[in-house]
């Protein structure tokens, strides 16, 4: 098995403001599920490498809620949401809000597929309420930030 089969895949839907991330893991669904639902384990991988993640609340069951904070250069960034549906080893449906933009909310669906031989495919979809929101979401991966990214795009488009 080559590592290339593990590479994260991103799909951006042109019809609805949705991003889909697909990734396979060398662990059975029960383990992958637990790494998502145990706050101690979750905190170990969710935040970027140079940040610290503190989980304030994590009631991972249908109807529960969560809040965690990532700390980067002394700045705290809060994220929170509700667990809408939690089905062990199969599915987590939850909302996700960055507290810096409290009106914005993404609906996230994490689907675990048993591939056999102790392997799992994780499909994570994030649906937001506008294309601009979705694109900001994707563009947030840029170090220069969304605004600057759009400015650069405007410049490029103005020249073409």
């Amino acid at each position, binding site marked *: 098995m080559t590592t290339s089969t593990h590479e994260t895949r*991103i799909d951006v839907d042109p019809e609805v403001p949705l991003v889909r991330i697909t990734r396979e893991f060398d662990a059975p669904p029960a383990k992958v599920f637990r*790494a998502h639902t145990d706050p101690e384990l979750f905190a170990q*991988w969710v935040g970027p490498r140079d940040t610290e993640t503190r989980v304030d609340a994590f009631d991972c069951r249908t109807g529960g809620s969560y809040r965690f904070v990532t700390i980067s250069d002394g700045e705290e960034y809060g994220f929170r949401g509700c667990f809408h549906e939690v089905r062990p080893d199969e599915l987590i449906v939850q909302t996700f809000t960055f507290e810096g933009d409290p009106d914005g909310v993404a609906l996230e669906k994490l689907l675990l597929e048993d591939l056999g031989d102790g392997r799992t495919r994780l499909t994570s979809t994030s649906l937001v309420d506008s294309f601009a929101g979705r694109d900001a979401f994707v563009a947030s991966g*840029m170090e220069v930030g969304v605004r600057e990214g759009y400015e650069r795009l405007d410049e*490029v488009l103005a020249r073409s």
Partner: protein
Amino acid sequence: MAADPLSRVFAALADPTRRDMVARLAVTDATVGELAEPYDVSVQAVSKHLRVLEDAGLVSRSRDAQRRPVHLEAEVLDLMTTWIERYRRQAEERYRRLDDVLRSMPDDASRTHPTDATHPGGNPS
């Protein structure tokens, strides 16, 4: 169709014929007639595809030249690819950390854990 620039590019590239046209224009500029040749569609249909690519800022056509060759705006394409690639890399890094966490977990810890305060998902209803 969504009005913001990124969505226009995503929508433009969602179509396989337009993706193919972009790939061919990455090699060299071409006229509408040249672009239409390999496809079993009318020049009008190709022109329609080109308009979508043009609106997204992905291609341009010189106004004065008679042949009006179509030119790929590689910079716009690169910018989009960069955005998505960085987002993908961020997700990949996160999942590599998850790989490490999964490796560190004992095999029998997958279901319940006596010290776990939240009993995630494990509570019988």
